[in-house]
């Protein structure tokens, strides 16, 4: 896709990510030029970038506007959070070796069944992708099979997220209710507060993002990628070509949900908390604007959009908190009206529509080479 004008994007992006995965820990640990909070903040941005990548895959390439990716992100985050809660062991306020503090507080006598195994990384880490993946599979199977498309799909994905938000707010859910999961002590035996752990988490996030990027490149440049874009542009024609549209959608949707889950899981140890507000409707749509601003249908655009918007958000909320929502709202309006292809579209000269076709064409051309 980027081949004709950005021939190296699929090499440059991973290379840059690997480079910062090495550089940041050096700057943080050896020279101390980077404060710890900045490392965690950048790590958070990269998690958002991965969420944006996941969203771009379904929206930019397959035309499915999901307003439910916050749900997949949060489920991945909760899976990680459960693991981290169990790692606290008897260091909690109540000192119960098995039950997390909030369960002791609520007078629970034993762990609910779904917490089983979450104290082992070998069990908990696969759950990070399996739980969002399973939800996406069931939801997608139901929705795509009955050909729920367009805004209808957006609305029911939003409703799904809203239902989960309500569910996780309940204390009965056994997920910490309102407060969520927090006060983590260690991850894989390392102190979550230690600088070295922070740096390591950042590097892992950057490398995971690089791998996720390569996975997306592989998918979008395969013949399946051609089909996916074809479905976005002319769904019923793709059917008459003999493609089972619902299978392809389900495939992209589930992969995307799993990526979002991984992003959420990497996010939790770096920000130190996961609570139900992560399921908020606003979060899903905010992720959409990252992709829209960066340029949907280009993978690097999603990453740039997520990092860029969040950088602005951090700056504005620190300096002019009142203005952040105005800025975000304006961004939605202006991008949809004037920048339908985002920054990635701007960077390419020529009319936007012409670009649209040419880029996809170029991308497709590369698929076979």
């Amino acid at each position: 896709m980027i081949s004709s004008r950005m021939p190296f994007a699929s090499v440059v992006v991973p290379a840059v990510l690997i480079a910062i995965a090495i550089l940041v820990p050096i700057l943080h640990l050896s020279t101390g030029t980077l404060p710890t909070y900045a490392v965690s903040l950048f790590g958070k941005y990269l998690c958002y970038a991965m969420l944006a990548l996941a969203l771009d895959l379904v929206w930019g390439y397959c035309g499915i506007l999901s307003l439910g990716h916050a749900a997949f992100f949060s489920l991945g985050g909760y899976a990680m959070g459960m693991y981290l809660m169990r790692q606290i062991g008897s260091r909690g306020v109540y000192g119960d070796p098995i039950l997390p503090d909030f369960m002791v507080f609520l007078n629970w006598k034993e762990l609910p069944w779904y917490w089983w195994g979450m104290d082992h990384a070998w069990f908990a880490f696969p759950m990070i992708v399996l739980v969002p993946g399973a939800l996406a599979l069931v939801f997608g199977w139901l929705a795509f099979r009955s050909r729920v498309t367009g805004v209808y799909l957006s609305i029911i994905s939003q409703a799904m997220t809203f239902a989960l938000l309500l569910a996780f707010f309940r204390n009965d859910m056994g997920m910490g209710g309102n407060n969520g999961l927090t006060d983590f002590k260690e991850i894989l035996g390392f102190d979550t507060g230690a600088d070295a752990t922070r740096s390591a988490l950042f590097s892992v996030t950057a490398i995971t993002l690089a791998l996720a990027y390569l996975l997306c490149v592989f998918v979008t440049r395969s013949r399946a990628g051609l089909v996916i874009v074809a479905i976005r542009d002319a769904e019923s024609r793709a059917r008459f070509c003999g493609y089972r549209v619902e299978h392809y959608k389900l495939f992209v949707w589930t992969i995307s949900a799993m990526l979002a889950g991984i992003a959420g899981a990497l996010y939790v140890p770096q920000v130190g908390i996961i609570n139900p507000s992560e399921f908020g409707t606003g979060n899903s749509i905010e992720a959409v604007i990252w992709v829209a601003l960066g340029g949907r249908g280009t993978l690097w655009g999603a990453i740039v959009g997520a990092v860029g918007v969040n950088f602005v958000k951090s700056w504005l909320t620190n300096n002019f908190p009142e203005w952040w929502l105005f800025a975000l709202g304006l961004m939605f309006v202006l991008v949809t009206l004037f920048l339908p292809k985002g920054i990635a579209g701007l960077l390419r000269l020529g009319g936007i529509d012409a670009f649209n076709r040419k880029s996809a064409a170029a991308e497709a051309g590369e698929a076979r080479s």
Partner: protein
Amino acid sequence: MLRILLLAFLLCFGLSAETRADGFDDGLHLLGGKFDDVERGVVILAGSGDQRAGAVLAALQDNRLMVVAGDPPSFFIRQADDSLLDAATLQPAGDAAAGAKAVRVNNRIRRAAEAALGTLNLSSPNAAIRRQAADAVFKARDGEALPALEAALAKERDPDVKAVMETARAAIFLANGQGDEAQRLQAVETIGRRGDPDALAMLRNLANDTSASIREAAAASVSSIEMRQSMLARVQDAIYGISLGSVLLLAAIGLAITFGVMGVINMAHGEMVMLGAYTTYVVQTLFVTYLPDAANWSLIAAVPAAFVVGGLAGVILERTVIRFLYGRPLETLLATFGISLILQQAVRSIFGPTNREVTSPSWMSGSFDILDGLTLTSGRLVIIIFCLAVFLGLLAFIRYSRFGLEMRAVTQNRRMAASMGIRTGLVDALTFGLGSGIAGIAGVALSQIDNVSPNLGQGYIIDSFLVVVFGGVGNLWGTLTGAMAIGIANKLLEPFTGAVLGKIILLVLVILFIQKRPRGLFALKGRAIEA
């Protein structure tokens, strides 16, 4: 309530009653003593039959009986306006009451006073008071009241009061094990007919009765009362559901117009509702400041104001943003979401992040009974009627007005409508304004049942979308059905699952429903839809 009772005493007996001074005075003096004395005094007062006793006992029960120590002590009744009456004469007390202190009572005394009052009032010439007295006996179930009750029953002519007295007698039989088996069986039946929670509790207590036939009769009666009560509770839930549904209807109907007629998903719709609610607040403030006499009616003035504010916001939104995005529903969704963020923050900046108080006018307070144990507050009723009226008005407007005709024409065939000379751009803007104006009106209704805060719209937008999606796009009757179905289902589920879980279940059900009927309950069918 007790004050009204007191007033009734004064009116009925205060002046003309035949007095048996001894009993009354003896009883009265005992009230100045220890708790045991007071209790004895109460019994004596009740037995005196003196009609002043009623006022004294009611005051005692209500902590309004004052005493000035002495031999004998003198007693005074404190009235609602804090003036004092001499208990012996029921005339204004004057200086004699200086330094009066409240007579100390405990719960035992209060109960005794209540029972005594009951007995006393059973012979009142006023039927309403006799009825209330019988009711009090029913509640107290004091075996000692039985002779008085029997006497009153023998004299009673009013069939309604008589029925209540019979129930009270039945209660005494059952509670104290008085009466023979036949009487007690009869009593079970009488109590069963009463059918309220008191009766239920009493019948449940008979589960260990010595007589098997009584146990059985009581059990049968209990289950039939429980059935009736649970049915009543469901009906009550359904009424709450209709009231929720009518609010949802109002919130969703504007959405149904913009989505159904124009194919536009307006994520800022909830903010139009919010603007309507804030308009209500502003109108109320203006009334309080400039027209305090008419403040009670500010809500009525808020309806057109909210319609104009919402409608204007809608027209501006359509002309500046949405019209450039027709045919791109997903982009419209995003742009309008941006607008919703801007509106929320704008309102937050102007009015502050906290809730604003919108008071309910007096004509919306109060409630009335529809059936035994089934009440409806006036506020709810007004909202239900108001929502349905707006709905029907809108329906008529779309069907019979020139604008409605043009609107339907544009929906069905935009190009053809344009070539017939209809200015489609204007119709689009006005349609959007209409939908948003109705949202503003919904805000007026919501200001009565929810907090007026910048997030007001957010709480209803998802439900409104579900209503539209469930009911089917482009069909206002579908919206009505959808709103009522979701409202009622919500409230019917709540008692079983709790509010949150009920909501989750409902969301999941609607999601599953959309699988079966992707275009809603009242979907248009045919080729045109796919094109």
